[in-house]
């Protein structure tokens, strides 16, 4: 479903700040894969995500979605294949528009937007049904402006909007990181339910190792622009946070040794 081949990206090339963000990344997600990506700051997790989303373009390499090469496609053009939830709960919704209007915007993904009324009674029925599945009572507040909702509510709504039209790939960019533990748990639970219900191919970046182990069917660890660990579902189920940290230290240590040797 998602095929990333030989992806390279260097920020600020030719300057003292030159930084290789990605080094020949290869990653293939089969249909229905739910991959969690962990790694330290600057490991390249978000860079990979942004390249799939079309926010960044690689120096070399390819991104394919469902067989189609989208490497150079503008973000809004590939948006018909991609659902995205951002880290900032304020980023995924339009604050001065109502809940039903936001959902109508989401429903328009991949369609031609013309002069038909945005919110109709038929759409409203769908929205009520979908909102009810969040169990936050939002279905009774269709005409409330989204800016009045709390961060957790907005992030739950963002998640619903991103998945409303059943995108080919769902991209989650540390989407629970800015929430308090309680709301984070809620959004994590909703994520699991929604992904399972729609069988979405998902790429989720997170800082939270527990969350990375609890969610998904596959786990990837990145460091210094490379994928250093790729655990299948079976391996992942046996893994613990402590084990992950151990792996990380081991691989990081080995790499550092290699580097030191080269120098």
């Amino acid at each position: 479903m998602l095929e990333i081949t030989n992806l390279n990206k260097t920020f600020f090339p030719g300057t003292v700040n030159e930084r290789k963000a990605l080094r020949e990344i290869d990653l293939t997600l089969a249909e229905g894969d739910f991959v969690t990506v962990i790694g330290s700051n600057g490991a390249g997790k978000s860079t990979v995500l942004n390249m799939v989303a079309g926010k960044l373009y690689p120096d070399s390499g390819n991104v394919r979605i469902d067989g189609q090469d989208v490497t150079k496609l503008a973000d809004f053009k590939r948006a018909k294949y991609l659902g995205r939830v951002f880290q900032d709960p304020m980023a995924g919704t339009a604050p001065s528009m109502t809940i039903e209007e936001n959902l109508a915007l989401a429903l328009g993904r991949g369609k031609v937007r013309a002069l038909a009324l945005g919110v109709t009674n038929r759409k409203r029925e769908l929205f009520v049904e979908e909102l009810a599945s969040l169990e936050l009572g939002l279905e009774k507040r269709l005409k409330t402006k989204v800016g009045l909702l709390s961060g957790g509510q907005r992030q739950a709504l963002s998640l619903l909007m991103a998945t409303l039209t059943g995108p080919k790939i769902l991209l989650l960019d540390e989407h629970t990181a800015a929430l308090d533990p309680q709301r984070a748990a809620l959004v994590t639970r909703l994520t699991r339910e929604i992904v399972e219900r729609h069988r979405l191919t998902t790429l989720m970046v997170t800082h939270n190792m527990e969350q990375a182990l609890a969610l998904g069917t596959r786990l990837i660890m990145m460091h210094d622009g490379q994928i250093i660990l790729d655990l299948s579902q079976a391996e992942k189920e046996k893994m613990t946070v402590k084990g992950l940290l151990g792996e990380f230290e081991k691989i990081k240590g080995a790499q550092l040794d290699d580097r030191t040797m080269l120098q």
Partner: protein
Amino acid sequence: MITAVELGLIYAIMALGVYLTFRILDFPDLTVDGSFTTGAATASILIVNGTNPLVATVCAFFAGAAAGVITGLLHTKGNIDGLLAGILTMIGLYSINLRIMGKANVPLLGEDTLMSPLRANGWLGSWVSVALLLLLCLVAVAVIVWFLHTDVGMAMRSTGDNPEMIRSFGVSTDNQKILGLALSNGLVAFSGALIAQFQGYADIGMGIGIILIGLASVIVGQAIFSQRYIWLAAIAVVFGAVIYRLVIQFALGAGLEVNDMKLISAVLVVLALVLPQVGVFRKLAARIQITSRGTAKADAPEEEEKQNA
């Protein structure tokens, strides 16, 4: 007094255009000063050459829309800052407007204009013309409010509200900005064409400072009315435009000259922007907000409860 209301209602259509860019798209568009004259020039020269005044006025709309597209392209494809893109188009339009008119002033005396029937029946300066112009404004408001609730109109609103988000739902924010600027400047030019027919001439300098009148109308109107619903905000703009003309009328009656009008406009905008920050007026505004909440649906207090729970 009635003439001030008539003028206010015609300028209200321009102010609705300014509302589209400033409030909906969050884009400070200065093209307006040029495109207002473009509308007046286009309609006037067509009328002088024997075109049906209605057709001429519609053509003015499209001439203004074209100007808006230029600003939009400069900003989105040329990556020029929005303010500068508007200024560039505005300056360029000065020459284009002179080219359209052929001279600095085109008189419409004795020509058949949209105002001729009003004049012939002696309705100008009476409540009949006020009623007709108000009807025109309400039609414009209705069309704008309807448009902003269509799929494409909602995409435009979200472009001003959260561009990053709406791009992730497959909308080209560039195209939305260009479309919004086109509609906005189309309305502005339409208003310019009506003003030219109302006052009986088009003049190269008639657009100078128009942006301030538009801004003053939007800000004054929304200081008085709530922005809770789009239709209310749009009607507020119309009222703002009329109030603005009445203030000008009052200032002229108090002994200021026509030449002082630009200064009055500037001072009015400054007052409308600064006064709400002053303590006394802030309290007053808060009180107005509370009463308007009481009459409207009271879901804001409920909001706080939910947040606290």
